[in-house]
């Protein structure tokens, strides 16, 4: 709101909305009379101008009005706000304290005071330079109380500049109690919004709007200063603010500016402090900071490797291993351990140590116990997910030694019904129920990692008991949980049910990496039908696509009983995707490779692809992606699969595009080793057909280059070339003597001589054959 409108604002605050409404009615009335009695053209212009102004004004009105939930409130707080306008600070102070007593814990009263315009007046009061410290402190406390009434209240507070005002007070004030009130206010603003975050998407915008205000080096260094000198409660609040700012990807850079100082202060604080709630906040902040890659790297660089942080964290873990005999905050020690373990997980991702990682794994598994607080279980499950990713040894350790599957099973258990008259069990029940979707998605993520690599773990978890093999979870049980998770996305705006869907897709992806389970578990669980439906519904949903494409890619492998259904469903989309080259190209290419891979003799899946991508288009694709390593490798593999056992594909290449691709990829472009191998495979497959052989022999340049590779290439390339030469030297038609001569002229014999004594029996085999086939020359 601009400066000019401040008198309006003041009137508005005093008389509420009625003033504005009266003003508008009056204005409309006057203008209407003017319009009726107009005289000349000049006056017409002036009247039109007035109307435009008025309409604009009415248009602005709603933007200055209150969020809808506040609009319904009956305004009864007027007398209190009136007293805020008193000239006597004592009266103001009394009024503030009366208001505090009314608003504490009472949403209705909070809304009431906001509607009658308390916020702008309070902001005005705290901004005055001669404001008493006590008054200022209590005003800020009142504002904090108002903020604890939901997002609507926070939005109003920000609209009226309360946030900026409090920040500037925090930076300038030297009075302890005022600073404490200010820090608490800022913390409340951040936490209230973050708390709602999981439930509603729209709050994300408010959150980033508020975070913008914290992107201020001065503010952050002030908070770090408080960490050093403040009392416990101040420290905890400022740590919470820092952690919150650090958790935002776009805003965390501001922390880097004070990173070194912050790290030093944090380590000192954690090293000697034994107040569990402070240590919990400190480790939380540390964990968040380490996870932000840039800030984290600065941290680790500064502390000369990870040793210092690691030592402190290990010490914290040991100190809190035995539950200290404190009763006032039973979960604090668990939170401390969860946070410290999370820090160590991040450190381990940079520098892996087996013993340490096993210890951390034990701690985290213990914190996954069903009797722990659901928040802790979610946090530790996601740390475990990170720790176990790609580490098969640890996966086995967690699976068997820590009995993780049984614990994960409990993540899916609805909280048991409780005696409704026992307040505390009702409280626990409600909390568990609120966290239920998030618990399940954390469990799916963890399962996704556990089942991603080791087939014996998948079998241990999913295969029916037979003989001594016993499945840990009943296969039907997991499949029903999966289909529940996949079906639970009725509300696309609810991030929780969406996260659950994404996590179940991840878990499904891991299970679908197994031939056996493609054929059995997923069939029994009716998963395929769900995925067909889900794919059809989410063709335009990038977030879901990013997870569902790999799953479908696995379903396109020959072993999947439902391959045909998915070929029909996705081929056109995927081909289109590759031609336009959007961000899923890596996965869609892999999916097409899987689709065209065949153990059977049928070429119908290859035809599906080759009929939509002509040879010319393939050439264009290869040229287009020549600088993208992984795409070019996959294009090579796709070509290899397309040519394999597929005479028609080779014959129909009237423009010799395939030869052009080989020339460009192998001779002209410096492509990666993997890509070379794949394209060589394509050439070998090409040479398996007579047409291919004759085309290759028409290009002595390419052949010379390939024969050179026989001496310069790696072991696998050498093997490939001798197999290729063998293919070229089959006595299949009348051009055979010509080919013999051509290859000898190109120096095959000399190259082969060098490979004569290879230890590789494949090469030896092929070399012998080459000799015999060249015998007649």
């Amino acid at each position, binding site marked *: 709101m601009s400066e000019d409108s401040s008198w309006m604002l003041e009137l508005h605050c005093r008389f509420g909305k009625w003033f504005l409404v009266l003003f508008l009615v009056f204005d409309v009335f006057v203008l209407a009379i003017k319009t009726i009695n107009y005289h000349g053209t000049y006056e017409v212009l002036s009247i039109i101008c007035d109307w435009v102004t008025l309409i604009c004004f009415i248009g602005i009105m709603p933007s200055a009005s209150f969020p809808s939930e506040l609009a319904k409130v009956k305004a009864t707080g007027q007398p209190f706000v009136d007293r805020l306008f008193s000239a006597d600070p004592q009266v103001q102070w009394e009024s503030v304290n009366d208001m505090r007593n009314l608003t504490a814990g009472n949403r209705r009263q909070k809304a009431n005071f906001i509607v009658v315009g308390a916020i702008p007046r309070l902001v005005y009061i705290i901004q005055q330079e001669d404001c008493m410290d006590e008054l200022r402190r209590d005003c800020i406390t009142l504002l904090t109380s108002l903020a604890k009434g939901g997002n609507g209240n926070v939005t109003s507070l920000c609209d009226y500049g309360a946030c900026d005002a409090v920040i500037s007070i925090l930076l300038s004030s030297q009075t302890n109690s005022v600073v404490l009130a200010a820090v608490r206010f800022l913390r409340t603003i951040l936490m209230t919004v973050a708390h709602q975050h999981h439930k509603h998407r729209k709050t994300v915008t408010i959150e980033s709007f508020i975070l913008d205000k914290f992107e201020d080096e001065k503010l952050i260094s002030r908070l770090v200063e408080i960490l050093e000198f403040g009392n416990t409660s101040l420290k905890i609040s400022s740590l919470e603010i820092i952690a919150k700012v650090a958790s935002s990807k776009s805003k965390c850079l501001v922390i880097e500016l004070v990173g070194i100082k912050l790290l030093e202060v944090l380590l000192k604080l954690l090293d000697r402090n034994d107040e569990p709630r402070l240590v919990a906040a400190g480790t939380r902040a540390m964990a968040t900071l380490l996870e932000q890659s840039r800030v984290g790297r600065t941290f680790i660089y500064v502390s000369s490797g990870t040793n210092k942080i690691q030592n402190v964290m290990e010490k914290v873990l040991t100190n809190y291993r035995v539950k200290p005999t404190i009763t006032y905050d039973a979960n604090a020690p668990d939170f401390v351990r969860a946070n410290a373990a999370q820090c160590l997980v991040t450190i381990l991702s940079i520098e892996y140590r087996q013993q340490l990682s096993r210890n951390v794994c034990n701690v985290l598994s213990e914190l996954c116990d069903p009797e722990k607080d659901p928040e802790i279980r979610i946090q530790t499950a996601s740390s475990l997910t990170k720790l176990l990713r790609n580490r098969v040894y640890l996966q086995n350790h967690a699976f068997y030694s820590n009995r993780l599957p049984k614990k994960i099973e409990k993540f899916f258990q609805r909280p048991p019904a409780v005696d409704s008259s026992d307040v505390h069990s009702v409280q626990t029940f409600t909390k568990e129920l609120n966290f239920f979707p998030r618990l399940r998605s954390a469990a799916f993520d963890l399962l996704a990692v556990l089942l991603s690599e080791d087939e*014996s773990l998948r079998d241990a978890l999913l295969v029916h008991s037979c003989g001594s093999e016993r499945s840990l979870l009943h296969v039907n049980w997991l499949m029903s949980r999966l289909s529940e998770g996949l079906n639970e996305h009725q509300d696309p705006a609810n991030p929780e049910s969406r996260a659950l869907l994404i996590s179940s897709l991840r878990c499904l992806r891991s299970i679908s990496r197994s*031939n056996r389970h493609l054929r059995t578990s997923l069939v029994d669980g009716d998963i395929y039908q769900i995925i067909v439906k889900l794919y059809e519904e989410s063709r335009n949903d990038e977030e879901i696509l990013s997870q569902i494409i790999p799953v479908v890619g696995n379903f396109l492998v*020959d072993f999947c009983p439902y391959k045909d259904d998915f070929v029909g469903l996705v081929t056109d989309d995927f081909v289109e995707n590759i031609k336009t080259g959007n961000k899923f190209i890596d996965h869609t290419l892999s*999916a097409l490779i*899987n689709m065209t891979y065949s153990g059977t003799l049928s070429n119908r899946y290859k035809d599906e692809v080759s009929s939509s991508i002509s040879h010319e288009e393939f050439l264009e694709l290869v040229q287009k992606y020549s600088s993208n390593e992984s795409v070019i490798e996959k294009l090579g593999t796709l070509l290899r699969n397309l040519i*394999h056992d597929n005479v028609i594909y080779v014959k129909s290449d009237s423009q010799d595009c395939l030869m052009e691709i080989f020339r460009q990829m192998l001779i002209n472009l410096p492509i990666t080793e993997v890509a070379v191998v794949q394209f060589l495979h394509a050439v070998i497959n090409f040479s*398996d057909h007579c047409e291919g052989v004759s085309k290759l022999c028409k290009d002595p340049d390419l052949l010379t280059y390939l024969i050179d590779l026989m001496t310069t290439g790696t072991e696998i390339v050498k093997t490939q070339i001798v197999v290729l030469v063998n293919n070229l030297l089959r006595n299949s038609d009348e051009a055979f003597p010509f080919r013999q001569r051509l290859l000898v002229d190109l120096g095959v014999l000399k190259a082969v001589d060098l490979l004569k004594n290879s230890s590789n029996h494949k090469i030896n085999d092929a070399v012998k054959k080459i000799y015999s086939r060249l015998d007649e020359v």
Partner: protein
Amino acid sequence: MPCFDDEMNLCLEDSFKPPHGPLDSNIYPGACYKGQQKSQKNTYNIEVKIDDINWAHSNVCGSLRIRGLTEKNPMIETFFTGEIIGKKYSFLTRKWDVDFTKDQLHWSKFEEFKCFKNTFNDDDFDHSKVQESPVLFMRWKEQFCLPDHRIKDIEGASYEGFYYVALTKETGDIRGYYYAKDSEPDQLLTLQLEKKNSSSAFQFL
């Protein structure tokens, strides 16, 4: 704009670069073997196809077709999973109702096992030696019928037991002995690799 969790990319192995392919070993995804299984009275034609091999975890799986085993079903196809003997899976089976003597009896039928015969039960048995052997030792266990895994019983046929298998690395020839508690001992499986000059590839995502 939703942000995608790149770390969740589960692909660990370099894509489409299996450490052993058709060019440097004689067992690879897509490899086909043909041959016979001989019992005292009968000989059946067998075809084995390898679906997938995971060298990192020493697992193999595929399908096994047997012709003429029963009159009602001229061809029966089963899905089998296999363990490659090495660091992860020992010569000692420790399941499927067999003990040390059964293991020793069957493995000893392979000439190449002779050098491990006296030591394979030792606690400090050096499994890296097994890798250097000219053959690849495996255990294949049939799991369920194809194409419908829900069929539990086939009249006159059973796949309760498992095969002790040895694959000669240089040629791709396979010998195997079927063992099941109540069935005829010493049923010999012999298979030869069908050589190919062309190949294709896939990779789970």
